């Protein structure tokens, strides 16, 4: 009796397990995204639903990981023989991914309409050595956000145009007792700190690499770190910045605990949303400042693209999904947290309405986007630099020595 029951259970389990396999004549794609900044998880699910409705034979499995896990997850799944058909990748990885053949070269799939319609700056996100390894999707840079009420209270009429002005304004706000730490950044020992550093490096006219050798320890690169250390030590910067990521910066800023913040596009509409934020309606945004005589504005290229891992068995379906996700129609519809890659979208009232300030800042910032170095050793260089920045902030090392050690450990 008992045996019969067990046998019946086994049979049900086996058949039950088989049925979906038989019924599923469709293709299932596994896609890897991040749950951090830019498009929200809800946005991506809604876009994907639109694709599935248009392609009933394709089903998409979505997976979301924090940005910090995205690179390693992509590489590891490769080593383990695949798993993903579409992956989101950062602008700093194409060199490494191309050299190690992690992503499919899609140069021949890109049409002339795409080539002419997408902003030229966006293409640099997916290219290495003249070949394209995906489609740009998130066009992003760090902007300077400011709290309009706090600036008005301190008698500041226009947002700062140079980093020196930013410092002076922050001092005024601090002295007036409006907020204890006027500036907040994402300086945790993570890639986020490199993005803030790159913004400053570009403002001071620095270089990461010169003639194949690290050069961030000299000139503009050194001045960038000196600025960071200076604003940290003078109490103008929230000291907890050195353990913050982007979401922490957003929390501090929208809680009304900072007058200035450096962050990605997505913060604009979230910090202006009364359901999320205590400072809704007071949020201003401009391109990050420049340095007198060197630059007008500064910006880091923080864009990301969608690509197909070489281990995917369904590259055609994957490309169909990528073209849908990056299409102008879809990007225009979801332009609140991430701005489109398409030139003409910036003149489309449906896109710009209600976020004119952001669009104006974007037009300046996106044009000035400075790249982090395209090198297959990027991860190593970045980690050495992250350590150097932390050492300098903590006062364990002078900015000169910290960057010197980072250059030595950078693997370049």
């Amino acid at each position: 009796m008992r045996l019969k029951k067990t046998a019946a259970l086994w049979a049900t389990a086996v058949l039950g397990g088989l049925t979906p396999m038989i019924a599923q004549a469709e293709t299932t794609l596994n896609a890897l995204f991040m749950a951090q900044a830019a498009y929200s998880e809800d946005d991506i699910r809604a876009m994907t639903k639109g694709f599935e409705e248009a392609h009933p034979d394709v089903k998409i499995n979505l997976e979301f990981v924090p940005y910090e896990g995205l690179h390693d997850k992509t590489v590891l799944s490769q080593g383990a023989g695949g798993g993903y058909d579409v992956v989101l990748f950062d602008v700093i990885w194409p060199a490494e991914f191309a050299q190690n053949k992690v992503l499919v070269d899609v140069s021949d799939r890109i049409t002339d309409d795409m080539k002419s319609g997408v902003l030229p700056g966006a293409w640099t996100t997916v290219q290495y050595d003249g070949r394209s390894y995906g489609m740009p999707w998130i066009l992003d840079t760090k902007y300077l956000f400011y709290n309009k009420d706090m600036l008005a209270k301190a008698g500041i009429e226009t947002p700062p145009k140079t980093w020196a002005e930013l410092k002076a304004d922050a001092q005024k706000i601090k002295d007036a007792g409006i907020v204890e730490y006027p500036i907040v950044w994402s300086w945790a020992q993570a890639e986020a700190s490199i993005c803030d550093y790159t913004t400053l490096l570009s403002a001071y006219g620095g270089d990461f690499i010169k003639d194949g050798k690290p050069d961030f320890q000299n000139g503009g690169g050194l001045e960038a770190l000196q600025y960071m250390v200076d604003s940290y030590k003078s109490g103008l910067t929230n000291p907890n910045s050195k353990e913050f990521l982007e979401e922490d910066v957003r929390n501090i800023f929208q809680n009304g605990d900072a007058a200035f913040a450096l962050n990605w596009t997505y913060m604009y509409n979230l910090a202006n949303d009364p359901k999320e934020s205590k400072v809704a309606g007071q949020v201003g945004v401009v391109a990050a400042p420049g340095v007198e005589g060197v630059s007008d504005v500064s910006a880091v290229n923080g864009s990301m693209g969608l690509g197909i891992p070489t281990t995917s068995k369904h590259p055609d379906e994957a490309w169909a999904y990528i073209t849908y996700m990056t299409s102008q129609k879809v990007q225009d519809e979801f332009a609140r947290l991430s701005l489109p890659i398409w030139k003409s979208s910036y003149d489309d009232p449906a896109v710009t309405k209600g976020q004119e300030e952001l669009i104006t800042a974007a037009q300046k910032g996106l044009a000035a986007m400075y790249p982090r170095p395209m090198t297959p050793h990027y991860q190593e260089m970045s980690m050495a630099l992250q350590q150097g920045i932390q050492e300098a902030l903590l006062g364990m090392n002078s900015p000169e020595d910290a960057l010197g050690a980072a250059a030595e450990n950078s693997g370049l």
Partner: protein
Amino acid sequence: MFSERRNLRAWLLMLPLLAVMIAVIGWPLADTVRLSLTDARLVGTGGQFVGFENFAKMFSSRNFQSAFRTTLSFTFYSVSTEMVVGVLVALLLNQRFYGRTLLRALMILPWALPTVVNATLWRLIYNPEYGALNAALTQFGLIDAYRSWLGLPGSAMAALIVADVWKNFPLVALIALAALQSVPNEIRAAAISDGANVWRRFRYVTLPYLMGPLMVALVLRTIEAFKVFDLIWIMTRGGPANSTRTLSILVYQEAFAFQRAGSGASLALIVTLMITVLAVAYLKIMRSFAGGGK
């Protein structure tokens, strides 16, 4: 003849298990040894034979030396605190009092939590802007402003050790509590009537019964603490300024972030070797107590 056949049968019966063990332990280990002698990358080309170059580089690298020191200090401070706290709690829970059973059950709770959950909880507690620790300390007037516990090298390490102790002292307490049950009441009563004070009773009556089980707990916890990864990865990712980067985190970065499978494998082998030494110590202790010991 008879014993030979029995031997053969024993080997035959063990064969499936041996095959499985070779497949899941032996082969990966052998492959790691092979990888450690090459300059292989994680993906892409197979890699050239480079002899012991990876090992030589590793031993002389500053990163390895600092990670080794970090691992040692994390292991020493967290395990020694766990041992002391564990024994004290066990002594308390061995007393008869109202609610003892409930307390004994509650004590297991931290140990039963997955490390990932534990690490996330503590990260929230230490949060510099809205963490419970900051709130408690300022409200009691012990500090005058919120602090960044995970943002400074010294306090980050201490914070990690506290989180590790909170999760793992119950294991020590549990083992010690079990051992305490085996202390014969007559001896304790005799010691009391001989006028031995509390400390002497603990030192000469209770402790000898605890030593064996505590040694086992000590070695097990040392092995675990030595290979710590998840707790640190979630709470500090090795920061600030790499002050909490242990050997396991270095292995991960070398092999997966920098994709140097070869030198990653050599580093992993070095760590394995160190843990093997601890494991041998564990086996020795187990044997000495299984043989003539208590």
